[in-house]
């Protein structure tokens, strides 16, 4: 190791059900590792300060902003990105997003879907207000909030 190079930290995690072992720099955020090392580009970069939700992934079932979490922190965790929401075809939630035309430009949608999945896993019969509150951390500039909310309500209760 050359002078000035950081110590690398070994991290083992499960990503979308697949075991992954890699070494990360201490300052690497989970989003960078997912996008650059694992080449899963579903989670998106936008604000990089935890405000927009485009980078949302689930860590052990909880939705988080992956731009704010160090990769080294999730050692031993199960990570789910949008790519892991359906192993085959589309999940009911993804289908509902299509049926309600909830995906316009689509850039925020991976984050919206993961946040919605994590929410529905703990509240399978939500009210409209609860859905809006659960997704308040996921900005959509196309402002498809009505359609997204309709889609989540439609998918509520459907098997994930």
């Amino acid at each position, binding site marked *: 190791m050359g002078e000035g190079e950081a110590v690398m930290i070994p991290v083992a995690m499960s990503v979308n059900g697949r075991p992954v072992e890699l070494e990360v720099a201490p300052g690497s955020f989970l989003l960078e590792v997912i996008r650059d090392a694992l080449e899963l580009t579903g989670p998106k970069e936008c*604000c990089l300060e935890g405000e927009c939700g485009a980078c949302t992934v689930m860590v052990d079932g909880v939705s988080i902003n992956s731009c704010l979490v160090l990769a080294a922190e999730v050692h031993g965790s199960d990570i789910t990105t949008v790519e892991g929401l359906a192993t085959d075809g589309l999940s009911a939630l993804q289908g509902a997003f299509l049926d309600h035309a909830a995906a316009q430009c689509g850039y925020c949608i991976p984050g919206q879907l993961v946040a919605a999945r994590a929410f529905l896993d703990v509240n399978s019969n939500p009210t409209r207000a609860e859905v809006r509150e659960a997704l308040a951390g996921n900005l959509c500039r196309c402002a498809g909030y009505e359609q997204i909310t309709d889609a989540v309500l439609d998918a509520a209760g459907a098997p994930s």
Partner: protein
Amino acid sequence: MIGASPRRIGGITRVKGTQKYVSDIRLENVLHVKLVTLDVARARIDGIDSSKALQAPQVIDVITPDELPHPIPRFGPLFRDRPVLAVGETRYHGEPVAAVAAETPEAAAHGAKLVKVDHEPLGGGVFSISDALDPESPLVQGPDLRPNDPFANSNIFREHRYGWGEIDEAAADLIVDHDYGFPMITQFAIEPHAFMAAPDGDGIEVWSSVQHPFLLQKTLGRVLDLPLSRVRVHAPDPGGGFGGKQNPKYEPLVAFIAMRTGRPARLVLSLGETFQTVRRTSAEIRVRSGFKTDGTLVFQDIDANFLMGAYADIADRVVGKSGYLAAGPYRVPNVQILARGLLSHTTPSTAMRGFGIPQLTWARESNLDEAARQLDVDRVQIRLMNLPEKGEQFIPDETPADGEWRQALERAAELIEWEAPKPEGRGRGFAVGLKSGPTTGLSYSTVRLLADCSALIYAGTSDMGQGARTIFAQLVSEELGVDFDQISVVMGDTSRVPYDQQTSASRSSVLMGNAIYSACEDIRSQIRRRFAERRGLDESEVAVTQGTIRWNGQESPIRDEIANVLGPLGGEIIGNGEMRVEGDPDHPLGGRAVFYELHVAACDVEVDAETGAIEIPRYVTVGDVGRSMNPRQVAGQDEGAAIMGLGHTLMERMILDESGRILNMGAVDYRILTSMDVPTEMISDSIENADGPGPFGIKGVSEGGLLATSAAVGSAVTDAVGVNVRDLPITPESIWRAIKEQQ
């Protein structure tokens, strides 16, 4: 398929997370670029020392003006005033003075910090409309950039004057005269702008989240001195454009880096950097209008100042085109309009959804509301009584009213329950917006009907969320009888799709739609000829309409005849289509409106008079759309636009400090609406009379929803608490202050 709402084409990749936006595309051996900028808007550059940066690990290149051709190439959609890197001085906060290319983003960012820019902050910058109008202010652009321009020694970029009749104050029973302010806001696409370039033999390949790939191709060809055939622009679907991604920005810089280093180069802006790259023109607008006691408009005198920014981009067109329609959708016998664009030491403003009309509509409709209240005329009635009938020429020599606009106003009033009683603290508002669509246009399309009766559509439109692919596929499905899910739409690559002027002004369903329609007609005429040949018929005995072939009293779907029509060799049928709107060089805008977007906004608001807090229990949006090709997508556009409009109405505003730095760059300090901020109930509807110039009588729809939002909310706030707020955004603080002032 017309009036159906099939699942969006491109939807599956969007919900599976596999849609590739520019920053998701990996190029081998790529260099990462970081812009070098100064922490001040206006500074003289005395020298740039890149030696330290060049010695830093993994830094491959530093590009300064010295590394560029001289004079430094300039570009812009109408005026070529924007340099690839700042020349002599910086003119806005964030204007790049140099750029660093390195093996990693971190190394590029580190290298950018090591570039020493010897500079002197100049102070006295032009950051506001009053600064720009002050003859003592420094010039933002040197007079040498504007030869033979009478305004070259001022910060006035241009003045657009329109009008008809004569303003006669004495003829009016009431004159209402006020100033209205519209803030500096930014497009805030969730996908920050991303640019990549790679040498490609003796040409260049460029990737950009751009709305106008062919304009970018032309710009790069000129700046790099390459033939168009050696400039290939990949334009993957933008992750939101809203106008901010129309025109070239940093593509020329990234292309120079790729050509110098011989390696692909990649620049992905941070969200903060996008605030320094694109914004909407801010405005201060004086509206002086005269009325008869019954509410009839006698005159309108509108003086609008727009703060453009440091370079023109497309802002002068924003000023000129919106100014032309400043008097709105009304029958006004005497009109005088002055729309003035001003240069300033701020982010160059550019197109944004509505293209100047939201600013003017805020001012004009608020003024109209104040008149209605003073005259004690109903606020819906005052609009209806001045509204032109369909076919009526409400602006001399311009496209007449092209819809049953009255129906849109009446429908919105019905949906908001205009006459229904309101609880205490609740107000109701109503406003009308009118925007002209494109004034010129050129779109080509190729449609290939394949041997299995599936089809490929080639279109240069950018599908940035409006759902253009879906509309085009619905059209071809209808015209050729091809199953909707057997159609693929190819876009976003200048070497694969034929020329399209641009994706803007809600044009694509109409103009590209007509090009695709004519490509389908080309295919049908070939089918007719070949079918007649194969059957030994005269062509006159065969008709092909939509998906069906008819001959001698018989009929059969194209699908069932395609193998027979193509013959033993198979192959395909290739149709080409073109839609051309030449415009009129004598018209002040270069052409008449191809169609209008007329849109009505109505809402209820609840205002807490103690705190000024606003809630919107119900919001109604009604557009005159001609025909709704895809009602679900139309609702998405209308409601999305309305919510975007609520952003600049209630919360959005870029804040500058005394040195012109943007203080709130990013999502923490600049708020846009979240799912918690939207109206409790959102109702959208369309007026459909099939009276538009597109296929099946459609008009464009994507901007209408935000034209009148601010004025409807302002109208409702006044209705609720009795005060007028004339500067956006209408915040709890501004309402609270207005209430206190009145007391």
